[in-house]
């Protein structure tokens, strides 16, 4: 089976899974909104209007206004951009680190493997969220720092996955063949082994983005993530919490957005997992 038909086969299985399709639709929906916010709202997300503080949803402001009279819909849309890109970038960093460490550990084995895997164990011992809180307190909150710190604390799962795959792949005939042809280590790792680990990585990445979005929202909610006035779903929710008794729209919509996005990624991730490896289904 060549790569092309395998992809087609995977997509075919994926499309037969209604939950996965729903998940993909949700993810796609939010991505489109994040990329083209002006399709939906022409309001400036940072435009303060003190005459319209905490207005309930109406024609002019479909999702109401916040505690400074800013349009919640516009803030949600721009917040989607922030939240989703934090998710993507953070997870990319995590995948990058996890991949390299996993490949090295799996391929070289022995001491290198023990050393790297013990390091993974150490990293897993930290309660991640508190580690992030501590580091943010030290380096200061900003979007870039958040992406970075979520990335460098979230790669251990990927590293283990890749290592396990690499361990079995490196014994396979095509690796031996490549080596016999005189391919260097880097070429073997990145041209022969890496492409074959992509399926589990894709699954981990999809689920990981959901996790990263949740962490970002949590940090922003606590006031140490994305700094106001830059909107993110988490910090819109903070304003919602302060006014929860009479401004339900400030809590409901960002909460719903976070919920749906995370659910969407999770469904999609599990769908992909089932699709690439039907044996795992139901486990």
């Amino acid at each position, binding site marked *: 089976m060549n790569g092309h038909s395998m992809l087609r086969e995977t997509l075919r299985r994926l499309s037969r899974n209604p939950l996965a399709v729903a998940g993909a639709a949700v993810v796609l929906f939010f991505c489109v909104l994040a990329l083209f916010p002006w399709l939906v709202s022409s309001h400036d997300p940072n435009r303060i209007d*003190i005459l319209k503080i905490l207005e309930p949803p109406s024609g002019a402001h479909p999702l109401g206004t916040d505690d*400074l009279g800013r349009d919640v819909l516009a803030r949600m849309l721009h917040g989607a951009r922030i939240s989703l890109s934090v998710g993507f970038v953070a997870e990319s960093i995590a995948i990058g680190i996890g991949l390299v460490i996993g490949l090295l550990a799996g391929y070289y084995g022995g001491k290198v493997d023990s050393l790297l895997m013990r390091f993974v164990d150490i990293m897993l011992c930290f309660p991640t969220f508190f580690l992030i809180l501590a580091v943010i307190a030290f380096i200061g909150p900003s979007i870039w720092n958040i992406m970075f710190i979520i990335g460098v604390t979230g790669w251990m799962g990927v590293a283990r996955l890749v290592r396990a795959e690499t361990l079995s792949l490196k014994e396979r005939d095509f690796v031996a063949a490549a080596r016999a042809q005189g391919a260097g280590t880097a070429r073997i790792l990145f041209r022969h082994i890496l492409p074959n680990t992509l399926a589990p990585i894709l699954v981990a990445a999809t689920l990981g983005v959901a996790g990263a979005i949740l962490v970002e929202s949590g940090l922003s909610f606590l006031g140490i993530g994305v700094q*106001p*006035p830059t909107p993110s779903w988490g910090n819109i929710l903070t304003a919602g*919490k302060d006014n*929860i008794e009479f401004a339900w729209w400030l809590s409901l919509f960002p909460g719903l957005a976070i919920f749906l996005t995370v659910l969407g990624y999770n469904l999609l991730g599990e769908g992909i997992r089932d699709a690439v490896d039907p044996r795992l289904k139901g486990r």
Partner: protein
Amino acid sequence: MKTKSRPRRRAAAPRILPALFALLLFALAAPLLPGCGGRGDAPGTGDASPGVPAHGDAIVEGSIGDVSGFLTAVTTDSASHGAAAYVFNGLVRYDKDLKLEGDLAESWDISPDGKKITFHLRKNVKWHDGAPFTSEDVLFTYRKMIDPKTPTAYGEDFRQVRRAHAPDPHTFVAEYDRPFAPALASWGMHILPKHLLEGHPDISKSPLNKKPVGTGPYRFAEWKTGEKTVFDAYADYHEGKPYIARVVTRVIPDLATMFLELKSGGLDLMNLTPLQRTRQTETKQFRKSFNKYQYLSSGYTYLGFRLSHPYFKEKKVRQAIAYAVNKKEIIEGVLFGLGQEATGPFKPGTWPYNPDVKRYPHDPAKAKELLAEAGWKPGGRDGVLVKDGRRFEFTLLTNAGNESRAKTAAILQQNLAAVGIKMEIRTLEWAAFINEFVKKRKFDALILGWSITPDPDQYDIWHSSKTGPDELNHVGYANPEVDRLLEEGRRTFDIEGRKKAYSRIQEILAEEQPLVFLYYPDALPAVHKRIRGIVPAPAGISYNFIQWYVPKGEQRYTTFQQ
């Protein structure tokens, strides 16, 4: 109660007893410090009968900040000063009309030349551990205040004293080289127990700073760090045992949570935010359980600059920012109109206040003009002004947990963007903000508040000699004329003379804008209806706390674990 016009950093806390003598930085918009001018709502609807004063019951109050220590000589935040006010007394204090009256001193004589004050101390006062209070304690406190080993921000007043002595156990004499107008008020400093502090060179490290023993209406019972402080009524208090048997201050670092606690009965008293007050208390249920009060608080919120910063060194830039800021929008949007535009560091309606100073109405065009005169020209990316290749960008710091300040910052950001200045906002936890950034002068600009004390002497905030790390002139303001006027203002007892000096200071500050004075917020306390005896006055509501009571039948907390 502490007496003196010293700068206090008002940290964090709406506390009941006024901490009104020291200038404090404050973390909250409007702490429950006494206010003036009392355009107060009448206390509630008057449906409850006054009942008979009775001992017993407890008051539970909320505070967003924890106490850092109980010895007010070595703390500068309002949470600590508020807590200490239950336990300690000064020689004098302010009454409900903000006039000085005797506290531990029964009376005093001032010599005709104004250089000598003789205090006649009360004779029936005992420390909480039973030891008698004498003039030796006062002398000891004085010595600690001028001791270089005492890390205090309030030593300056006491260094003015040439000689202090205690001719007998109930007389204390302070002599000055020159007349010193804030002298009397400075003796509102909490008096420390000599017998417990002797042998502690640095009182901030003594056990008493954590477990205080004082002469005040309440004795210290418990302090659980980050959770609560508990005080019990002191039966032998020299003005009689307070009615309310126990005061519990719970640390709740979030105002929305605090409000939920108030409504669910977990708290009896808190200072409402303007938003809570305007949008969330007009319910039948709330009105049934709580009385609301409103008065101009003794404090102002400001936008301060580090004056050594290359951009803010220039007066025109600061004036431009003052024009760019829309104070009206801030007062409407953040305070919901519950406050007043600030023009200077004194409180409207009090004698030192000068309303005829230069004002800065919102005028972006004028701001741009001034910035252009200072060399800041358009040309940067996204409309940011540029001078000598540098973009006008800076970071504004303020403390977390204060919604009003966060919103003020957002409005400032928009105001400044409109004239081509890019401002980043960073919020920091209170203690880190003060200790790591303000004290170390690591800021471009900040939003903070100062309390306003009844005595107008603000030497410690504005004098050019007061810029050390533990001192209070953190913007680094220096103006020889202001220095001279500050000196002049404290050297005469003549109120007209003082008024002239402070009026001129306000004119200079308004012209120079070392700070953009933003607003005077209203204090908006809500107190549970079962608590009676509250009489709003110019000093606010808390001056007569020991006379507050709950009638027998309405008492909620009847048994305490001791």
